[in-house]
């Protein structure tokens, strides 16, 4: 057993020296994820608020003004401009000056008074599909409330009142949803890149060839590389969590200790992935490209942005082989829902297995290549 890992200690010590020797690289490696955290953490907000809205009120009545005021009072719409004709209404939409257009027809008030159905036209810019749905919902909601109010007369009692209660992220803040997922993506990118580049650099410079002539075992070399970069990634995780908690004000409902412990299998997996990449890449440029190739699947197929539940069956399967999927479940589970080990142990086990598999794969590739 010891022979399998022979040489990890000197390799590990040497690797720490490399890291300390090159503070520039270290600084960027640690800083870049933080910059991205701020960029994406603030930019990604899927809650629709303050949509610029254009209004064409042909009715010019008290009732129509009341309706427009109600709509404007909701946080979703912001009255950007009022226009006098259909052409102007559509023009403003086309030019992108407004995302929502509301047209109150001239017979609105009369139909209300007659007791027939009054119509209001709500135009929504569908080129922004995520906002469109929410805008439609919001306008229907306002109209529904207005109708009910009128049906029941002034002081009537609502027959049904739905009281939606959003668990775990009560204010439905985007940051709460996105920042924990972002941690997985940032941590993965940084770790894979650092370890893969470190090994490929040795290949380029010929020191790897020298090492194969020494008694250092393949697993010894890999473990020796994983420890320093694992420590680096773990420190970065602590910094990111601190920023998430105190800058983005995302509360951690579960145990921080459990969160940190359950991060280890994920780190193991991404370190292993970095090693596999380093056995495939002959140059640093190649290693960089391959590392970046892991980012998009981890963003789009891991449940970070798109819900896995709504994916086609094939992609559901694909999402199950992406390590970030499990880690994002762990992160959201612990941070947002206060879940513990007994809820998430399966994810931890899967990640551990994935980690061991990637490392064995890398070691096997390494042995095979050195013979070739």
């Amino acid at each position, binding site marked *: 057993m010891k022979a399998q890992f022979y040489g990890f200690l000197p390799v590990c010590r*040497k690797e720490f020296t490399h890291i300390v*020797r090159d503070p520039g690289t270290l600084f960027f490696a640690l800083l870049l994820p933080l910059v991205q955290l701020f960029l994406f953490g603030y930019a990604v907000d899927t809650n629709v608020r303050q949509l610029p809205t254009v209004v064409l009120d042909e009715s010019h009545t008290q009732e129509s003004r009341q309706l427009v005021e109600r709509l404007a009072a909701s946080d979703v719409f912001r009255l950007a401009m009022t226009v006098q004709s259909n052409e102007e209404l559509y023009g403003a939409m086309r030019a992108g000056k407004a995302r929502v257009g509301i047209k109150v027809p001239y017979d609105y008030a009369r139909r209300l008074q007659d007791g027939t159905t009054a119509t209001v036209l709500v135009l929504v810019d569908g080129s922004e599909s995520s906002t469109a749905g929410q805008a439609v919902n919001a306008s229907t909601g306002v109209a529904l409330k207005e109708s009910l109010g009128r049906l029941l007369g002034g002081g009537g009692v609502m027959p049904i009142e739905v009281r939606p209660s959003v668990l775990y992220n009560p204010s439905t803040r985007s940051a709460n949803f996105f920042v924990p997922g972002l941690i997985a993506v940032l941590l993965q990118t940084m770790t894979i890149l650092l370890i893969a580049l470190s090994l490929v650099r040795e290949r380029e410079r010929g020191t790897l060839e020298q090492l194969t002539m020494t*008694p250092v075992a393949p697993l010894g070399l890999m473990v020796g590389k994983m420890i320093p970069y694992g420590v680096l990634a773990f420190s970065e995780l602590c910094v990111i969590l601190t920023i998430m908690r105190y800058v983005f004000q995302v509360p951690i409902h579960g145990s921080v200790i459990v969160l940190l412990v359950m991060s280890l299998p994920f780190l193991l997996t991404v370190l292993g992935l970095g090693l596999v990449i380093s056995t495939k890449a002959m140059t640093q440029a190649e290693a960089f490209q391959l590392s970046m190739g892991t980012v998009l699947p981890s963003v789009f197929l891991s449940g970070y942005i798109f819900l896995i539940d709504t994916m086609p069956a094939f992609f559901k399967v694909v999402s199950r082989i992406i390590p970030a999927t499990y880690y994002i479940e762990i992160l959201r589970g612990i941070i947002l829902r206060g879940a513990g080990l007994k809820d998430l142990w399966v994810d931890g086990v899967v990640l551990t297995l994935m980690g061991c598999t990637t490392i064995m794969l890398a070691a096997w590739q390494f042995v095979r290549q050195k013979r070739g």
Partner: protein
Amino acid sequence: MTPVITADHLTIRFGEVTAVNDVSFAIGKGELFGFLGPNGSGKTTIIKALCGLLAPSEGTGTILGMDIRRDAAEIKRHVGYMSQKFGLYEDLSVSENMGFYAGVYGMTGAQAKQRKEEILALTGLEPYLHRRVSVLSGGWKQRLALGCAIIHSPEVVFLDEPTAGIDPVARRSLWDLFFQLSGQGVTFFVTTHYMDEAERCGRVGYIYLSKLAALGTIEELQRLPEANPAGTSRVQIETADASMMLGSLREMEGVREATIFGRSIHALVETSEIERLHARFPQSTIETIEPSLEDVFVTLTYQIMKASR
């Protein structure tokens, strides 16, 4: 005395390509064995096989009596290796590089410290101990690479083109180091392109097209029948304009080879034609000589090329 390095009908194939074809030799303790051959002739592949990194397709070999197929792990502990790529970490200091390799070979504490001092004394790297490798000149890097390769006091050292690209003075002083160590009983296996380096080796092997074409001391090689075909003589022609003469010489009947050596020409000619040569170039001095090592290899190479066609 049992040989330290042996190759026994060693054959290594990569798919369809035969990189090493039925190579056999035996090298004794303390020998400085030179291995010559053009790029891609299989020199590095043989070293890798002897170090146990590559399993031979056929045949076998031993290092210090250990089988290269079975005892690869143990062989690595007794073998030093240095390539033209140095294998040094440029961002680490001289001391850190030596410390790393000492650690890799399982040396610790006092043992590593003492060995480092020995290496420093041997290589003269003491003044550069805390310099980063990146600022050292090629010659010093080479000395450090050698120092790291022998930090674990190996009995056998493989040097794969150790002096490629360094200046002649540094080259010479590096060779002095090899001699010093081989005098202490370390066995060297050195591959090289340089004839002058080969000439310093006790024995030389010449590999061409994956086959060992010749093997022996310099004198043995010079007297090889293949290098001195019957009925031919090796002559040196001193002339004012060697390059002018070369063309017409090569076209003459009875001239098998002609190569410029500085201001003279070495030629392999049929002995019966020497008189005609004198008649053709009356201004030049023509004398019969022993073939140089290069002459030997050139002749052998022509013969193998002709035979393989």
